[in-house]
C-alpha cells in the first residue's frame, strides 16, 4: 500500500472514530439513583413471580422426579 493510501485510510478511520464518539457523547443520561430505583422497583414487583427466588412446592415442580407411593 502506498503511504498516501495508508494515510488516507488512517484519516478515514480517525473520522469514523470521531463520528462515533459524537454519537455516544450526545445521549441524554439519567442519574444512577433513578436508574437504581427503577431497577429495585422492577425486582420487587416481579419477585413474587420468580420461582427461583420464592421456591417451588414439590407438587408444582415439573423437574422433580416423582417417586411412586406405596399404600401400606
Amino acid at each position, binding site marked *: 500500500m502506498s503511504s498516501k493510501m495508508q494515510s488516507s485510510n488512517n484519516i478515514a478511520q480517525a473520522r469514523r472514530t470521531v463520528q462515533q464518539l459524537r454519537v455516544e457523547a450526545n445521549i441524554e443520561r*439519567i442519574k*444512577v439513583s433513578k436508574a437504581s430505583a427503577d431497577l429495585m422497583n422492577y425486582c420487587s414487583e416481579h419477585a413474587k413471580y420468580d420461582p*427461583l*427466588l420464592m421456591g417451588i412446592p414439590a407438587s408444582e415442580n415439573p*423437574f422433580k422426579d416423582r417417586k411412586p407411593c406405596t399404600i401400606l
Partner: protein
Amino acid sequence: MGEMEQMKKEAEALKTQIEAARKAVHDTDMASAASGVAPAPRVQLKTRKNLKGHLAKIYAMHWSTDNRLMVSASQDGKLLIWDSHTGNKVNAVPLKSSWVMTCAYAPSGNLVASGGLDNMCTVYNLKTPVIKTVKELDAHTGYLSCARFLSDTEILTASGDTTCALWDLETGKQKTVFLNHVGDCMCLSLSPDMNSFVSGACDSLAKLWDIRDGQCKQTFQGHTSDINAISFLPSGNAFITGSDDCTCKMYDLRADQEVIGYQDAALNSGVTSLALSMSARLIFAGYDDFNCNIWDSLKGEKVGVLSGHDNRVSCTGVPPDGMCVCTGSWDSFLKIWN
C-alpha cells in the same frame, strides 16, 4: 494543524466530555441505593436432572420458549434436543463441523442454529420428517461465537472477526453488519423489545446497537479482559456482563455506565456464562473453576453456589418461565437445578 492532529484532539475532547457527563450523573451506585432492600434469601438449589448424552465438552445451550425443550452443543459434533422434564433426548443433529461454539433455539421452536470454528452459522429445521439443514450462513471471516434468532426469518450472529451481523434467513445473506468492536465478539443479547442488542468482545467493551440502522449507540467500559457473557435484564434498561477478569458487572443504558460489580477476592476464575432469574434479582454466573455462583443483583453479594460439575461450567440458561436454571459443562453433562 493537519487533519489527523485535529481529529485526535477532537476525539480526546469527546472522550473527556463523555467521562464528565457520566460522572455528573453518578450520584450513587446500585449497592448503596439498595442498602435498604431486604437481602435475597440464601439460595440452595438441588440438581433435579443430570442430562447424560454428550461425549465431549459442552460449549453452549439454549432454552426453547416452551420452557421444556432445550438445545445443547458439544464438540462431540452433535446438537442434542432435550425434554428437560423427562431428561430424554428428543433429537440429535449431527454437525458437519464438530468445532461448535454456540447454539440457538428459534422462538417458534421450528429451527435451531449452530456455529463455531467453521465461521458459519448453520440453521436446521426440526419440524421436517427428517431434520434438514435449511441454510448455511457463510460470510464471517472469523469463528461464530454466538447466534440468536429474532424470528424464523432473521438471526443475529457475533463473530471472532470483530463484527456482529443480522441475516435474512430467506436469502441467506447479511442484511446489516455491525462494525465497531476492535476485538473478537464473544456474545450478544437481544433487548426485550427486539429493537436493539448488546454485544461483548475481547476488547473488554460492551456495545449497544440499533438493529435497524446498524449503528453503535453506546459503548460501556470497565472490564479489564474479554467479555464472554452478556444478558439483557427483562426490564430492558440494563444488562449484565461476565468476563475473563473474574467479575460480572451491571450496566444501565440510561445512566450510560456501570452501576454495580459482582466480584470476590477469593474468586480468581474467569466468568464463562450467565443467566438471570425472572425478576432479575438473581444472577447465575458460570466460572472456569467448575462452579456456578449466584449473586444478588441489587446488593452485589454472593447468595449461593451450584457445585457439582467436574469441569468448567461453559453455559447457563434460565427458561422464560424462570422455573429452573440449567448449567452445561466441559464435563459433558447438563444439570437442571431448582
